[in-house]
Structures are given as structure tokens and as C-alpha cells.
């Protein structure tokens, strides 16, 4: 054993934690080396100095003071103590809290920018933003109320021709019917639902086209509707177009976007029209005759009676004339009820068409899952967005509890 090793064994020797072999060589070395023996003595002395250190007494009331302190400690408080603000700083918890707050703020910004906060599950609520009724006075102005009444009325009548898909055949049929007899009184109505991109542009385009073709806009509404995918612009147009231009304009409108639904109604009023005309002519003849009788009337009572008869016939003739005029108008100007809703192009995702072969299929699958991921990501964002207010509320409540607790403990310490 050399002096260096000896030093390492001093403590073990003192504490008797040394094995027998080492103890013998330790003792041997100590006998040979004066310096090491001195070192051993000094360490031994150090140890005994430590052992001799006196013990200090605690104040008598120490234990009872702790009991008192502990008694004041309610279970709720002791739960809180582990979360005191002091520890909060010492344990570096503020870093975690700060970064969480930053993430929440970030999400908030993202969500509010993409308007996802407007999310509502059923999408039923609509924030209507009515641009107003744009009624052009090009013709005797149409009363909307009257128009709807007429629809109800005509729907009950037997002469109605109503068809839905397929669009093309139906159109042909209507065209043939129309062109076969120029005197035919056919009221035509079309209802079209479209999905378009850039609704405002399309809206104005339709407006201009209709006017340039001699038609007019009877009613137009634009509003924003909130749906699951965010706000959606929608519009409703009631167009009146010259009967001859009906097909032309309808074709033009259909090209504007994707057709969601379309229906054309041809309401044949020919028989009723002729009937009404005949009745009116009868009435007129009757009126003429009554007027002849009136000239021959001798006493006042007769005159009054005939006058009453004449005036009732006159009013009937008038209402018939109005009805005929209205029919003429409806026949001359066909009605197109156009609903448009805006779709954003991003919703469509990446187009998967035009990929062929194995490689094409692989890339198609890839794009499909990317699109799915985008959808899921959007949903997650929406969900987080909907949770944010709740989280904020909880945070506020926790903060209030913290402050209350701190105030309470501070008072107690005082």
C-alpha cells in the first residue's frame, strides 16, 4: 500500500468498514510511514471533534407550535399550498403556462381569421343581409303577392304540366308545345338552383344579360348563411324574360355553375283564356242590351234597377280584363326563379381526375388522403375553436380562486 492508497483507507479504517487484508497492510504502512500516521491522527482527531459537537435544545413549545400551525391548515388549503405562486415561479411552471397561453392565442387568431368561430352544427341560422328589392318599372309593375297567389291557384288547375329531370327532354317538349300554336297561352316558369364560384360577379353578369335581352329583375336578394363549413353567400333572383328569349337565357344561366336542381313548369292557359274572352264578350253584349233598355225606361224605379244591373256587369268585365292582361303578361314574360349559392374553390380540394395507370392510381390515392387530412385538420381547428371560450372561462375561474387564496393566506400571515 502506498501513501496515496493509504489516504483513501483512512476513513474506512476509522469506521471499521475495511476488510481484513486491507487492515493489515494499512497498519503496516502506518508503522513505516510517519507522515501517513500523522495524517491518520489528524483525520481521527477531526472525526472526534465532530463527534464532540454539542447538541442544541429546541424551544420547549416547539412541538405544540407545529401542532397549532398544522391545525389551522384546512385540507383545501393544504391542497392549494402545493400550487402557491412562489412555487409557481421557482418550479419554472410559468414557462409552461406562458407557452400554453401563447398557443391558445395563436389558435384563437387562426380560428378567428378563418371565420370558423361562426361555426354552427346545423347551419340553420342565417344572417340575412337583404340588398333590397330591385324592381324595374319597365312594365306594369308586378306585385309579388299577386304572383304567389297565382302560383297557388295555377298549381291546383288541371292544365298544369310539371316535370323534373331529365332536363333536355322536357325542354324539347315545352318548345314543341309552344311553337305549334302561336295563339297558345302558355305561362312558363323555371326554378333553377346553382352552385357558383364568385357569386357577386355571376350575379352582376346575369343582371346585365337579362336587361340587355329585354327582360327585367323582379326581385333580388343576397344574403350570407352560416353553415358547417363557414359562411356561405347566397342569392335569390326572380327574373322576368320575354317568352321568345326564355330558352336562350335559361341556357345562359345554366352555364354559370353547377346545377343542383332545375324544374320548368308550363302552365297552359289557352282554354281558360278563350273561355274568359267569350264570357267577356257575352257580358259586353248584355251591357249593350241593358243600355238599350235603359233608353226605353219610363219611371225612376226601372231606371235605377237597370243601372244597378249595368254597374255589376261593368265591374265583372273589368276584373276579367285585368285577368286577361295579367295572363298576357305572364305569357309574354316568362319567370325564372334562380337560387345561387357560392362555393369556395378550396373546398373542392385537388382534382383527382386525369391520372392513369398504376402511378396515377398511387398519386390519386395520395391526393385523396391529403384532401382527407385537410378536411380533418379543418374539423380539428373548428373543434378547438369551439372549445376556446370554455377554456378561457375555466382559466378565469382558476385565476380568481388563486387570487382569493393568496389574499387569504397573506392576511393570515399578518
Amino acid at each position, binding site marked *: 500500500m502506498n501513501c496515496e492508497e493509504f489516504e483513501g483507507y483512512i476513513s474506512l479504517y476509522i469506521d471499521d468498514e475495511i476488510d481484513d487484508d486491507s487492515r493489515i497492510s494499512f497498519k503496516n504502512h502506518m508503522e513505516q510511514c510517519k507522515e501517513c500516521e500523522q495524517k491518520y491522527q489528524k483525520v481521527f482527531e477531526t472525526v472526534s471533534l465532530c463527534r464532540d*459537537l454539542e447538541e442544541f435544545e*429546541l424551544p420547549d413549545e416547539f412541538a405544540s407550535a407545529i401542532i397549532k400551525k398544522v391545525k389551522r391548515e384546512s385540507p383545501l388549503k393544504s391542497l392549494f399550498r402545493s400550487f402557491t405562486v412562489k412555487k409557481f415561479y421557482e418550479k419554472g411552471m410559468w414557462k409552461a403556462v406562458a407557452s400554453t397561453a401563447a398557443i391558445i392565442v395563436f389558435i384563437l387568431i387562426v380560428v378567428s381569421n378563418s371565420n370558423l368561430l361562426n361555426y354552427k352544427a346545423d347551419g340553420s341560422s342565417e344572417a340575412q343581409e337583404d340588398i333590397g328589392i330591385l324592381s324595374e318599372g319597365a312594365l306594369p309593375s308586378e306585385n309579388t303577392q299577386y304572383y304567389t297567389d297565382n302560383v297557388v291557384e295555377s298549381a291546383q288547375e288541371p292544365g298544369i304540366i310539371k316535370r323534373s329531370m331529365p332536363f333536355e327532354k322536357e325542354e324539347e317538349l315545352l318548345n314543341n308545345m309552344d311553337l305549334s300554336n302561336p295563339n297558345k297561352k302558355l305561362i312558363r316558369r323555371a326554378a333553377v338552383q346553382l352552385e357558383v364560384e364568385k357569386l357577386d360577379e355571376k350575379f352582376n353578369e346575369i343582371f346585365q344579360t337579362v336587361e340587355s335581352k329585354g327582360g327585367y329583375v323582379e326581385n333580388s336578394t343576397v344574403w350570407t348563411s352560416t353553415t358547417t363549413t363557414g359562411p356561405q353567400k347566397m342569392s335569390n333572383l326572380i327574373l322576368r324574360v320575354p317568352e321568345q328569349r326564355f330558352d336562350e337565357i335559361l341556357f345562359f344561366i345554366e352555364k354559370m355553375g353547377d346545377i343542383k336542381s332545375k324544374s320548368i313548369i308550363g302552365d297552359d292557359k289557352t282554354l281558360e283564356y278563350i273561355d274568359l274572352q267569350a264570357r267577356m264578350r257575352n257580358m259586353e253584349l248584355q251591357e249593350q242590351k241593358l243600355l238599350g233598355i235603359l233608353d226605353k225606361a219610363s219611371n225612376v224605379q226601372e231606371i235605377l234597377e237597370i243601372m244597378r244591373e249595368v254597374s255589376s256587369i261593368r265591374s265583372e268585365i273589368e276584373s276579367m280584363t285585368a285577368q286577361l292582361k295579367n295572363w298576357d303578361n305572364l305569357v309574354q314574360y316568362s319567370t325564372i326563379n334562380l337560387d345561387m349559392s357560392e362555393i369556395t374553390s378550396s373546398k373542392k380540394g385537388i382534382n383527382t381526375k386525369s391520372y392513369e395507370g398504376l402511378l396515377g392510381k398511387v398519386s390519386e390515392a395520395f391526393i385523396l388522403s391529403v384532401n382527407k387530412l385537410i378536411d380533418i385538420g379543418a374539423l380539428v381547428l373548428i373543434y378547438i375553436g369551439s372549445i376556446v371560450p370554455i377554456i378561457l372561462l375555466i382559466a378565469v375561474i382558476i385565476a380568481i380562486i388563486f387570487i382569493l387564496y393568496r389574499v387569504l393566506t397573506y392576511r393570515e400571515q399578518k
Partner: protein
Amino acid sequence: MEYNEKDIIEKCKLGDNNAFEILIKNYDKKVYNMIYRIMGNKEDALDLTQEVFIKVYKGISTFRGDSSFSTWLYRLATNTCFDENRKKKNKKTHSLDKPIETEYGEFKRDLRDDTYNPDEMLIKKEIQNLVQKAISMLPEEQRVMIVLRDIQGFTYKEISEILQCSMGTVKSRISRGRLALKNILESLEEPFFKNYV
């Protein structure tokens, strides 16, 4: 009343304050002296001892008896000291001021004492103060070893349990601690070892 630790601890777990008081009285002196030697400051030691027993009160329900209660208690005490030292490192002005203040305070009390104490007593007290000063100069890990082994008299095994480190670590730290303490005492102006060599 006979002291049965297991019973006492069970009672403490149920929230019996009398049992807890007995438990405190049984250990407070040892804990206090241990903390004092590690911290080198009586005021701190008193506060920390209190803190330790409050921690015991709160944590006793989590004490499962895997180790002996004393080991658990001393581990709590040493950890509390380490925490306190770590805090003090962050506010250095305090750590520099406090020991000087206490050193001064104790010195004052010694002066008062010496009017009726014999000279030997005074010398002994002075030596003790110097030894404490020397211990305070040791690095924390060695100081704890000296306190546990040479002042409190724990075995190597107990120390390894309290500090949750290996026997090898305990051995080497005790060895280095003692040699370091010896060197510090030698370097002090007082010729410590003259009388004994």
C-alpha cells in the same frame, strides 16, 4: 406511555394530533441538530425543522413503511436542506449575510456566558464554533456526509438509504469530506492539531 412507533404513525395517518405531537417530540432534537449542522445557522434550522414536520404531517399518509420511518424523515430533512440551499444560491446576498449575522450572534452569547464559565468551557465553545465554521465551508455533498456520519452517527448503510445513493458513493464522499475538513481545520489560524499530535 410506551412509545410504539407503528401505532403512533397509524394514529397520525388518521389525523390524531396528540400522536403527531409525540412523534415530533421523539425526533425534533435530532432533526433540528442535523439541519443546523448542514445549514450552519440556527434561525434557518428552526424554520426548516418546522417545515420538515409540517411536510411530515401532510405526507404521512403517503408513507408506506417500505423503509423505516426515521430514514424517511431524515431523507425529507436533507432534501429540505438541499432545496433551501438551492433557493439561497438564487439570492446570493442572503447567503452571504446570514452566516455572518449568526456567527456574530453566537459570539455575543459566548461573551455573556464567560462571566461565569471557566476558561476551559470557553475554549471548548470556541473550538466548536470553529469546527462548525469549517463544516460550513465544505461542499454540500461532503458536508451532509460528515453531519450524518460523524455528528449524527448513522452507519454507512443508513446514510445510503437516507440519501438514496450507493455504498461506494457514501464511502468515497465520507473519505473526501473528512480529508477536506482536516485540511480546512489545518488552514485555520488556530493550531488545532498541535495538542494531539
